């Protein structure tokens, strides 16, 4: 059809194409504008302001001064910061695989169709996620009590002496337990919904080929939910690095086991709110943001590699 177009018309598309393009440029901005304004204000501005803050140092005596990257060099040599980062990294390495493993197991069990009372099971696993983290931590804090709490009751009932879950050696484990309890249901739901969209024809084909349940899981289900696994892992990484609520609330019960620099976020919090070191606090927050981004991105690259 295009062969029949006469030569003079060829110039027209160029002109007409240019005009809408020019008008379109502004129209587009008009639509995106409100979003961009809000985005800049509530998303970019705080980050930019934090970066700005991190380049200064405000003192109680002596006022404010530009110090360049001094806050960053200080952070790199700050043992409190590194030990807090080490602690959440350990938490990440141990708690996240356990939590995701349990979530995956439960999701596969639900999806297998061999479970009685599936809906009840599903909702009760998910329920803890609906409990706010603060309430969950308070609840577990009571249970961990060696005197009037559940641990105390067990000790009394059996005449034994369980180790104190809130002692310095065990407190990270206790926090991991709370987080796992809270988030297994959430991750299970991500996995389960990914499993639900696997076409039944694949299972039928597998059955015809004589594949057993294990084979189905390994060759169909797991590859099908790879994306969900990666997403859940990334969420968990971010959550681990941002650990704050649970230790912060338990600190009241175990002030000596949970220091003010227990996790990077707690460190930033106490620097800012009890030490008025807003500048250094901003620095710690920015470094943690970058670390989280790098680790999450690395996981995403690795997780998505084979799919591309």
């Amino acid at each position, binding site marked *: 059809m295009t062969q029949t177009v006469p030569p003079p018309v060829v110039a027209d598309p160029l002109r007409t194409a240019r005009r809408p393009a020019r008008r379109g440029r502004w129209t587009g901005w008009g639509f995106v504008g409100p979003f961009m304004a809000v985005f800049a204000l509530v998303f970019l501005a705080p980050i930019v302001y934090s970066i700005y803050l991190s380049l200064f140092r405000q003192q109680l*005596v002596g006022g404010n001064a530009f110090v360049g990257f001094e806050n960053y060099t200080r952070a790199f040599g700050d043992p409190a910061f590194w030990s807090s980062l080490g602690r959440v990294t350990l938490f990440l390495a141990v708690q996240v695989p356990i939590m995701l493993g349990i979530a995956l197991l439960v999701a596969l069990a639900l999806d297998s169709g061999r479970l009685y009372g599936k809906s009840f099971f599903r909702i009760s696993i998910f329920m803890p996620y609906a409990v706010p983290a603060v309430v969950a931590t308070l609840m577990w804090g009571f249970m961990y009590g060696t005197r009037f709490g559940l641990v105390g009751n067990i000790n009394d009932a059996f005449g034994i002496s369980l180790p104190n879950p809130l002692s310095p050696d065990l407190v990270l484990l206790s926090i991991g337990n709370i987080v796992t309890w809270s988030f297994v249901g959430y991750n299970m739901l991500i996995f389960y919904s990914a499993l639900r969209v696997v076409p039944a024809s694949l299972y039928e084909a597998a059955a015809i080929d004589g594949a057993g349940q294990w084979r189905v899981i390994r060759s169909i289900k797991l590859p099908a939910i790879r994306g969900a696994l990666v997403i859940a892992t990334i969420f968990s990484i971010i959550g681990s690095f941002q650990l704050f609520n649970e230790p912060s609330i338990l600190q*009241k019960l175990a002030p000596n086991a949970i220091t003010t620099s227990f996790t990077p976020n707690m460190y930033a919090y106490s620097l800012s709110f009890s030490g008025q070191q807003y500048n250094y606090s901003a620095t710690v927050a920015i470094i943690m*943001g970058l670390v989280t981004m790098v680790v999450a991105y690395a996981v995403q690259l690795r997780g998505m590699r084979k799919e591309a």
Partner: protein
Amino acid sequence: MTARTRRTLVRTVALAGALSLGLAACSGGGDSGSGSDDASGGGGSLTIWAWEPALTDVVADFQEDHPDVDIELVNAGTGNDQYTALQNAIAAGSGVPDVAQIEYYAVPQFAIGESLTDLTEFGADELDGTFSPGPWNAVQQGEGIYNLPMDSGPMALFYNAAVFDRLGVEVPTTWDEYLEAARALHAADPSVYIASDTGDAGSATSMIWQAGGQPYQVDGTDVTIDFTDEGTQKYTDLWQQMIDEGLLSDISGWTDEWYQGLGNGTLATLVVGAWMPANLESGVAQASGDWRVAPMPQWEAGQSVTAENGGSGLSIPAGTQNAELAYEFLEYATAGDGVQTRIDAGAFPATVADLESEEFLGKEFEYFGGQKANEILAQSAADVAEGWQYLPFQVYANSIFNDTAGQAYVSDTTLQDGLLDWQEKSIAYGNEQGFSVD
């Protein structure tokens, strides 16, 4: 209440969500403007930031006397929360209140930062002798007076007499007897502890204060921190024994377990400030009638030396347009008719006249089995050891007490080493903040 919050504020959990990159861009707390209407001619308006509940009545009475004055009483948070908001407002230069409640230990921090108005220009120095010595010393910084004392916390021994009677143990009058009593109580009934302690900066510094220690020496921005003096040593020697022998319960203060322990007789004593009765009445109601008050245990038999534990007063932040009117309110609330109003509401006053009044001293506490507890508490106020100073950055120092000295309660670190670690970290912070600390 004020002292209770003072003790917990370091651990106060602002249930803020997880912090993210935007953390440092914390919001300014100034949500109330301070009007600068006609301050001279009796009228005008005041914005007051305070959490002391009894002030509501004081404000109402003040407004009755000054119908032209418009007062806004704002609870901008308790203790540290309010200080953060105040610091932000001062830094931002807007929304600064005309009057702010500030605890004694935090006064130097604000005074050094030139965030408070020196009250001597309004004649606050004429109030010398009006207040008991502990609080009065605490509100002075150099030549200036930066706060008028509202309440105080001279320390005393609160004890569960029922427990002491049941186990046949004498109530201690010295710290040596206290240690003996701790052993005797715990031996007679292993579920009973003489006290609970998991490391509390306020208690520790008050104990050192009473023992004659003066670890903090502050002269303007020149600060010395020394936790090796004799007074500190007396405290650590005693307390290390208490920790080593397992005589202290590991329940943290102000938790549910703690209140239960005070109520069911497993925690037998409290050595705290005079603001405690109201807290016992409300928090440990089931033990009403069991508790009594005794003078604070002494380091030497026959002495009567005490220390302060908590307490707060009212300050005028720098930069307010209504300083004169604000001072009028300060004087009314802390040295005028406002004092009785607060006493009626259960506060422990800082004014000598009230501490010596028959009515105050003669008050029989039903909670303490009809004991005239104020006699002991008022005597304690008069016996507070002089010369104690807090750091100009005590708020921060207290917040890291458990990171350092607190480790003595859960590890092999000794209390003395813990305090030295605290000293080291406090020195580092002070120097970072532009003080000259050693």
